[in-house]
């Protein structure tokens, strides 16, 4: 076990159940995510891993179980999602920048209009973050003038600028051209090194291996296996995980 896992539990999922029109998508999901930990969620398409992420910041309502975020129950009826979402950053598969705003306006929207922070301070922070992803000189561009990889890096900066305590990445490289995948994954790897708590859904096995403290393998809406990357990739315990990993092996 890595040292990181000694951090306190930030996000606790217990008995989570999610249904769409009676069809069970997620069933009895139990997972604790510690501060500073990077959890990568793997699984075949349609197994419910994206849905799991969306449940964590209230984009989907759940039918059973409980989610606790730094000790606070997110299943409470009176939960103020607007406040919770400021602390849980999320980046999606589609380039989800707002097309009518420049890069900088995209980044400033949340901190200024939602968090009502001081503009000077946010600008300074945005500059540091943009420089880190190598896109500061594109701050006045519109999203349509950027490549897919650049847009995704901006989307990450936009989420980071809210100073979230945890980041959720929902297949952020799935819609990208292969040569742009690396630049986005490098940003996420950098965040991992800094100790950002992250839950990552991805199909990039090499990346999963490199970034994860823990791999959670979901099959048919259930957690099938949870292990360190070394254990999972070299010696998967379940037959289902073995089959899944075989898909990625070309021999």
């Amino acid at each position: 076990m890595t040292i990181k896992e000694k951090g306190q539990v930030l996000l606790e999922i217990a008995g989570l159940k999610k249904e769409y029109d009676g069809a069970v998508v997620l069933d009895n999901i139990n997972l604790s995510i510690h501060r500073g930990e990077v959890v990568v969620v793997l699984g075949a398409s349609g197994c419910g891993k994206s849905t799991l992420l969306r449940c964590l910041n209230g984009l989907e309502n759940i039918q059973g179980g409980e989610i606790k975020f730094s000790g606070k129950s997110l299943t409470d009826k009176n939960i103020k999602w607007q406040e919770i979402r400021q602390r849980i950053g999320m980046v999606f598969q589609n380039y989800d920048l707002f097309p009518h705003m420049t890069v900088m306006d995209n980044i400033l929207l949340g901190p200024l209009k939602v968090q009502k922070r001081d503009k000077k301070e946010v600008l300074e922070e945005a500059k540091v973050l943009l420089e880190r992803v190598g896109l500061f000189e594109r701050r006045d561009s519109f999203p349509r003038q950027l490549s897919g990889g650049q847009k995704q890096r901006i989307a990450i900066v936009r989420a980071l600028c809210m100073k979230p305590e945890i980041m959720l990445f929902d297949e952020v490289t799935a819609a990208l051209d292969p040569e742009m995948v690396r630049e986005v994954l490098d940003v996420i790897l950098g965040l991992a090194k800094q100790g950002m708590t992250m839950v990552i859904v991805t199909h990039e096995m090499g990346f999963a291996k490199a970034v994860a403290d823990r791999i959670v393998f979901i099959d048919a809406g259930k957690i099938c296996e949870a292990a360190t990357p070394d254990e999972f990739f070299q010696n998967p315990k379940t037959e289902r995980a073995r089959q899944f990993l075989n898909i990625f092996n070309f021999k």
Partner: protein
Amino acid sequence: MLNSGISVLVEGINLQRLLAGLFVTARIALISIVIGSVLGIMLGLIRTSKSKVVRFICRFYLEVFRIIPILVWMFIVYFGVTNMFNIHLSGELVALIIFSLWGAAEMSDIVRGAIESLPKHQIESGRALGLSFWGLYRYILIPQAIRRLLPGAINLSTRMVKTTSLVVMIGVIDVVKVGQQIIERSILKTPTASFWIYGLIFILYFIVCYPLAKLSKILETKWES
């Protein structure tokens, strides 16, 4: 013959009368476009509501104005409603009311269509940033919807300008009616009067509608770049 006929345009105060008629046309159109747009935008936003009852009521309102011809609406209010409640409403006021309500109905559909055409993940990424319901509309949905609804809204405006020619049926003296009066008076002396007068009216309508079309083009290219 045609050469001699053109003078009918400047004879006496004919030109001033036509321009005064055009002013009536433009005034009815402009005021109803403004009122119709404001009401229509509000109604269009309401139509994106999740409540089925609210959506049905708004839809019903739209269909009522689509199915019943504008002319019939003006007759209903100008002759029917005034008679029923024993009140007097001027023709122009009735025209303003009907055109505003019609504009609002059509505009609401354009606004609803524009908002619903926005990709769903725009809403989700806005929500994921912690935006409130109103923040989402104010910063994400409305600014993007305006760009999408512009062609339809301008089209509606020019339609409204053109349809004002119906107001003559409830006794409003608009540019077409003034033209008819001039033609009737000059027809014996100038047999080609209708060609010149209607020709001028054609150009006047063009002058009113063309800037609208041009404006939409300019805004579209500006937002595209």
